[in-house]
């Protein structure tokens, strides 16, 4: 299936490695020789055991951390858009800004005028169902609502690429479904390229076109599994479909070894 995809590749990661220096002058290899291609408009989920370097990979893609070796090429078609926005976990919403100002933050940073950025932020907030809370502060919102502000902020910035670092990890299971549904609806409207980090196999299947499974540390790409569930998807009904179950067992087979390897390593320490 992947081979027949005619969309151009827009992210090309080749031989990417990352080594951290530890406090006692040792080294820790977080990523080892990672090769990854992402196509235009593709939704890719990266899953892996904890500490496998998924977040490091995302931070390097987002230029928040330097890489050690290897190369990353972004080949998006030329446009006025910013390259990327990152969605962090819940606490990434600024408590001192209202919902509207939080959402418009990326536009503000790019120097978009107040009137225009408010129009654009309002439009996105409308879509995530926060139109009634434009002038509320994050303190007044629930965890799920804060996370919607986080999503809105990234979408309002209108980048070529969205990087998401376990954005729904801190919310309960039911809220998670609602947020996933909201994310998919927004994504359907824009078909942006997404790299989404998660530790939840189910979340990855509901969202992704392709799941990238990483090995335990040092993180390598172990296998890649396409998810051939037609879109638009109904996240509330998906878990009983045969394709969902098939992909879940395939991903789990790949992940199981890594999780067990990690558990063994931790038991040895």
């Amino acid at each position, binding site marked *: 299936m992947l081979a027949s995809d005619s969309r151009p590749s827009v992210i090309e990661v080749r031989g990417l490695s990352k080594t951290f220096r530890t406090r006692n002058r040792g080294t820790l290899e977080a990523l080892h020789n990672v090769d990854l291609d992402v196509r235009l408009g593709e939704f890719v989920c990266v899953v892996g055991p904890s500490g496998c370097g998924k977040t490091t990979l995302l931070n390097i893609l*987002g230029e*928040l951390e330097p890489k050690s070796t290897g190369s990353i090429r972004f080949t998006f078609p030329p446009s006025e858009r*910013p390259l*990327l*926005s*990152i969605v*962090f*976990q819940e*606490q*990434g919403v*600024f*408590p*001192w*800004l*209202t919902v509207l100002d939080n959402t418009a*933050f*990326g536009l*503000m*940073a*790019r120097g978009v005028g107040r009137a225009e950025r408010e129009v654009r932020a309002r439009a996105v907030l409308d879509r995530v169902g926060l139109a009634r*809370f434009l002038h*509320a*502060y*994050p*303190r*007044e*919102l*629930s965890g799920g609502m804060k996370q919607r502000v986080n999503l809105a902020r990234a979408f309002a*910035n209108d980048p070529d690429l969205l990087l998401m670092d376990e954005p729904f990890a801190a919310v309960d299971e039911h809220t998670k479904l609602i947020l996933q549904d909201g994310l998919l609806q927004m994504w359907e409207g824009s078909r942006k390229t997404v790299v989404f980090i998660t530790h939840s196999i189910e979340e990855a299947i509901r969202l992704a076109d392709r799941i990238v499974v990483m090995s335990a540390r040092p993180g390598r790409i172990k296998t890649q599994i396409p998810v051939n569930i037609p879109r638009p998807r109904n996240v509330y009904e998906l878990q009983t479909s045969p394709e969902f179950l098939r992909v879940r067992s395939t991903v789990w087979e790949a992940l199981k070894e890594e999780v067990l390897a990690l558990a063994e390593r931790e038991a040895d320490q």
Partner: protein
Amino acid sequence: MTTPASEASGAASGVILATSVRSTTREERFAWLTLERVFMIFSPLLLLLIWEALSRAGVLDVRIFSRPTLVAVLIWNMALDGSLWKNTAATLARLVIGMIVGVVPGLFLGLTMGLFRVPRAIINPLVSATYVLPRIALFPLVLLIIGLNETSNIVMIALGPFFIMTISAMAAVLNVDPVYLRVARSFKVSTRDMYARVVLPAAMPLIFSGLKLSLGLGLLGVISVEFLLANEGLGYMIWHSWQILSLGESMAGLLVTGLLGYLMFLALDRLERALVPWAGPEH
């Protein structure tokens, strides 16, 4: 002095809470607010009542401790003859000027030290070394350098707030949650926006804590220098009355000082709510 004031700040944040979007716990929060409001008045009143009762029962010697009703009459008389206003105005003026002279440079120094590593490395040892000195011990030195005048008094008052603001503004900047900086960097904000729109607002709550501590120290400073070297002001009133064994007046000075501090604390609280409207109560 701090107890009723911090209760008041609790009640104040309760007001913001009551307007919260989520209404499920609204009644619960409203009840809490009422409780705070009631005790804000009731607790100090109860203390005065006990004082009055003990004094009338003969447990407290009225010649030493006076009693609230007698002190109230004294304050009334001082208000009529104008000495109350004169002394209060003198203390208030010193406090306000001393606070400004201490807080403003302290705030800027602390922010600079928080933001930039080199000034922090250079100045931090000096702050640590001088901060621990009891400031009143510096008074003779200050008098020697500046002279026996009002400027010396102001400098003495300003020292406490200056150090507290330096230290707390620096700590406020250094303790900004790194996730906010990562978010801001991911949106490629300019350095100026990073400071003005992220670091500074994130540091505001801790800066206000420093400001409240500064007010307490400023008040301590005013009363201290007025004990030592002044011929008007509430500190002078307390100390002078004590020296001529006019203990009721000394008590009156104490009560007015307490009230003054309390009102200034409330004013600061108002200012905080206006400048940091997004901050909720402590969780």
